[in-house]
């Protein structure tokens, strides 16, 4: 009798046990997939290890990787490149995403097709998109050079991937092209949840389109904007394939972000302890940046 009472999850005093039991598989899985690798990575960052093996004895504790990292010009350059990418790409993704969302939120003929076209870049696999852009911006036979010369913008071909500024601009362009549809879809969902009455009331009060955008649309969208910006920022932070396929981080490290640097140190130079230190710092920066962005609008998000 006492045993069955112990297992009786329907009893009010035991009811929360059922919740924990149901959550346990998910928690265990998350711990295995996310927490354990994270722990290993942090542990490796405090060891002087080149190629890591889990079955090898742990190397002595050292902060050498972090000391070397903070003294490295390449690391600070990667931080600066990442910061520039996050700022520029997030900004233009937001502008284009909001703009297209406002556009396709209106009722007009061909609205469904327009919505499809806006979302199309999001559906195209990243690597395929990057290969297409690599050919568009090819220095010798690319469409962009041909177009620029025909239009008269330049009188000789631009070596897109041999110039640090041009290469950075190309990377930003591809990232914005790939990233804005997500913002657009999120904004569109947000726009459709704003009650029509707000706009009708504003119209009655004589508010013009710009005023309605500033005083109704943007404030109503703030929760969506906050979450979307954090997600976009994190995507730019960790995105690897666009930069790797387009420029490999070059030329002259002009497009070497923290994720590219981590990969290069781990799998190019086989310095996994050092690479883990970069990964840990990237994680900390991401957590702080996300927290700051969310904390700035606690009531809205």
């Amino acid at each position: 009798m006492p045993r069955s009472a112990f297992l009786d999850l329907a009893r009010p005093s035991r009811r929360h046990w059922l919740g924990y039991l149901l959550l346990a598989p998910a928690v265990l899985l998350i711990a295995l997939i996310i927490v354990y690798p994270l722990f290993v990575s942090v542990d490796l960052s405090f060891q002087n290890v080149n190629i890591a093996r889990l079955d090898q004895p742990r190397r002595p504790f050292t902060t050498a990787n972090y000391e070397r990292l903070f003294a490295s010009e390449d690391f600070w350059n990667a931080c600066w490149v990442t910061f520039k990418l996050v700022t520029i790409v997030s900004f233009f993704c937001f502008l284009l995403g909001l703009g297209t969302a406002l556009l396709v939120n209106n009722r007009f003929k061909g609205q469904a097709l327009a919505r499809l076209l806006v979302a199309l870049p999001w559906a195209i696999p990243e690597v395929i998109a990057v290969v297409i852009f690599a050919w568009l911006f090819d220095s010798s036979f690319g469409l962009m050079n041909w177009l620029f010369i025909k239009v008269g913008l330049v009188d000789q071909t631009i070596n897109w991937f041999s110039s640090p500024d041009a290469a950075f601009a190309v990377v930003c362009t591809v990232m914005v092209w790939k990233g804005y549809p997500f913002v657009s879809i999120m904004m569109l969902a947000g726009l459709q949840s704003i009650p029509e009455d707000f706009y009708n009331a504003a119209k009655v009060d004589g508010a013009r389109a710009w005023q309605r955008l500033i005083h109704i649309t943007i404030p109503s969208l703030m929760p969506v904007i906050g979450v979307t910006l954090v997600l976009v920022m994190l995507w730019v932070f960790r995105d690897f394939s666009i930069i790797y396929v387009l420029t490999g981080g070059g030329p002259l490290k002009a497009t070497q972000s923290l994720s590219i640097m981590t990969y290069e140190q781990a799998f190019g130079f086989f310095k996994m302890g050092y690479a883990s230190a970069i990964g840990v710092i990237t994680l900390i920066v991401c957590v702080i940046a996300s927290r700051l962005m969310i904390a700035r609008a606690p009531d809205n998000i």
Partner: protein
Amino acid sequence: MTRTRLAFSAAALALAAGFLPGAAWAQGKVLKFVSWQKDERGVGDWWGSVIKEFEASHPGVKIEWTKVERGAYADTMTTLFAGGKPPDIVHLASFEFQKFADNGWLEPLDSYIKDAKLDLKGWAGQDTCSWNKQTVCTMMLYFGYIFAYNEELLKKEGLAVPKTYAEFLAAAQKLTKDLNGDGITDQFGTGHETKGGGGQYMSEMMNYTLDAGGRWTNDAGKVTINTPEMIEGLSRWKTIVKSSLTPRDLAAGEVRQMFADGKIAMKTDGPWLYPIIQKGKAKDQIKLGMVPFKPPVGGSSNVLGIAADAPKENKKLVWDFIALATSDKFQSSYATLGASPPPSPRADTSAATKDTPHFDLLVQATKAAADAKVDRIPKGLELQFNEFAKMVMEESQRMIIQDLDPKAVAATMQAKAEALQKQ
């Protein structure tokens, strides 16, 4: 009686329980083999023939052959080894095996070689496989660069086939043209990879640095970049790239395709260029010869070894596989199927000479590179090769983009290479 029968039955069952798994294990033995060359025309077929013969001569043993793209190869192999699940048959590029050997992940082969009485004397590039005074691999290819040129384009400009760097430069300048006057160059004098990995970038540069008499390091492994010869070599590379005598920002494969299609007039490359030419639009216009540089770029390509972590019985089987691949029979068929000179000095290449018209040229180029002891991996920088190659590529790009003096660039490279050696 019944008891005796029962005892026999029990004994039989016990025996079956003890032996059946062993028999099943022997029948189902699988050796893992990961390679980037699986679908490569020629050499991929050769690997396939070695596997077929191995499986025929080892009943019950299968080779699980998996392709991993070259671009992801180092990552994949590192992950497999680090995770304690390496492939039994280890196939690596000759510029990356050192890290694996240095970690103790490659089985020393000296005892196997001695037991099998495998004669590796005169085996091209085999010295590279020595790590910490132990043989950890067998070299599967050592090559020398050949010169391919579009005869029709050269004739159109009244140019003879260049024999020196000066003639090559003059020809490249004359052959680089905007054919339709739209402001975009349509035809290039030569073609080099200027985008991608540091290793290939370095190989492209070496056409010019070797001809100028420069070497990255000397025989003792001391860095020798800040020398008049290397400065001259860097200066030549700068001239070729900055004057856009080569298309910019293309990967090696794209450059080869452009050459095969007649958009590039002259190209120096390894034996693998020929099959690409054969599929190109300009295949009838392209001729082959010795490179106009001395010595030609050359070097070791890929190696075969045994994973130190593999079970003992697998190691023996892997060695059988290596012994088969390095046998006279398969070294001879390597020449025919792979259309490349095999590393073995005992290989019969007469069939290959009949099948591949330029086979003697490949042998001559390989010998010229081997005699000059040319290798893409500088002595003394084997472990740091990837970092070194990346540094060389970046400093060279800086020289071209910022129009720096090659003398200053050589000094910077020297200092950075020495710092890498000290790491």
